[in-house]
């Protein structure tokens, strides 16, 4: 299964970024093989529509589930339309979050945070 974790850095050892749309990086990993692809999020600093761009990226990459902290309303609309599941990760490394996900320890997110919630927040810190 292809999952994506919002990440504060460019490795699987980096701490999860609690923001989805404006995450610094995305780590997309196959849970069976643990092969991963790391993408710098070009939408992180965009003026608007970061959630939509990030959501579209997930769709284009064929991601089936996302592990992150907070999802805004626009990103949620895109992800819902694509039937991508969202799980609440913890403030630990990307790798540890994927391990927890595989063990079924992460809860599903269905609610959103307000627009622009993650603007001005440094990656990985609340």
């Amino acid at each position, binding site marked *: 299964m292809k999952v994506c974790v919002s990440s504060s850095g460019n490795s699987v050892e980096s701490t999860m970024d609690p923001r989805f749309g404006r995450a610094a990086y995305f780590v997309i990993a196959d849970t069976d093989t643990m092969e991963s692809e790391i993408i710098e999020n070009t*939408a992180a600093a*965009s*003026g*608007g*529509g*970061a959630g*939509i*761009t990030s*959501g*579209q990226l997930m*769709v284009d990459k064929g991601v089936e589930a996302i592990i992150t902290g907070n999802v805004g309303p*626009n990103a949620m*609309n*895109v992800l819902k*339309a*694509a*039937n991508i599941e969202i799980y609440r990760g913890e403030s630990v490394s990307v790798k540890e979050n994927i391990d927890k996900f595989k063990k079924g320890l992460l809860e599903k997110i269905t609610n959103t945070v307000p627009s622009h919630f993650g603007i001005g927040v440094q990656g990985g810190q609340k």
Partner: protein
Amino acid sequence: MRIAVLSGKGGTGKTTVSASLAVSVPFCQYIDCDVEEPNGAIFLTPEIQESIPVKVPVPEADMAKCSACGYCAKACQFHAIAVVKGKVLVFPEICHHCGACVIACLNDAIREVERTIGVVEVNGDGTFLQGKLNVGEPVSIPIIRELRKRMKKDVPVILDCSPGASCAVVQSIEGCDYCVLVTEPTPFGLHDLKIAVRLVRKMGIPFGIVLNKASDSSRLIHDFCRDEGIELLMEIPFSQEIAESYSKGVLPAQNDDFWKEKFEKLYEKIERGAGK
């Protein structure tokens, strides 16, 4: 003669200065371009006669023609479209109405539909105009554009701008003959004033500074004006009397001949500065 009043920092006195000019300059037109929070009407108490909705075109996809190629989403600089599992998701609030998606579509599947984002309000003789952006809307430019279309050509026009130095201000001051930069003697006032100065210099518009809430700290602004060779047009003191009447919706120039004359003088300086 088109005069724009801007400041950089909010709350320095743009409306005080522009509305005071409006009551001091005969036969002028006042336009409140601060469409997120227009407040000139509180002082000028116009009778609004006409309210014109401002509409913008936003895309709508005809799914019978759409092939879900995603070109519309890629063309959108503002990320207002996503194409997901054969569906086109449009986020109308984020759209900037440029029409790129319509051009990018290979199947002629996108048409534009109208959406109201606010209003332009006008008094009986068109000497007072204000724009109002609906709450929650992020794009104010179309409303400012509508206001500007209604600028009079034969009388002085005073444009009360929004704070900051971004698109809304650029749109408001473009083509103006003179800019009045209102500031206050605080580090924040100076910081944002510097940004506003860079903007008007870049746009090549003659300008001068009005120092409001002048106090013991005024040197901050005096030094800046002297070092930069900028004309300090006028000073309004940090006065309890002015603040009290302001809190009742009365401008300094409305209840006091002293201040009315001061603003008439300000207008003369503006005319000279604009070379008109």
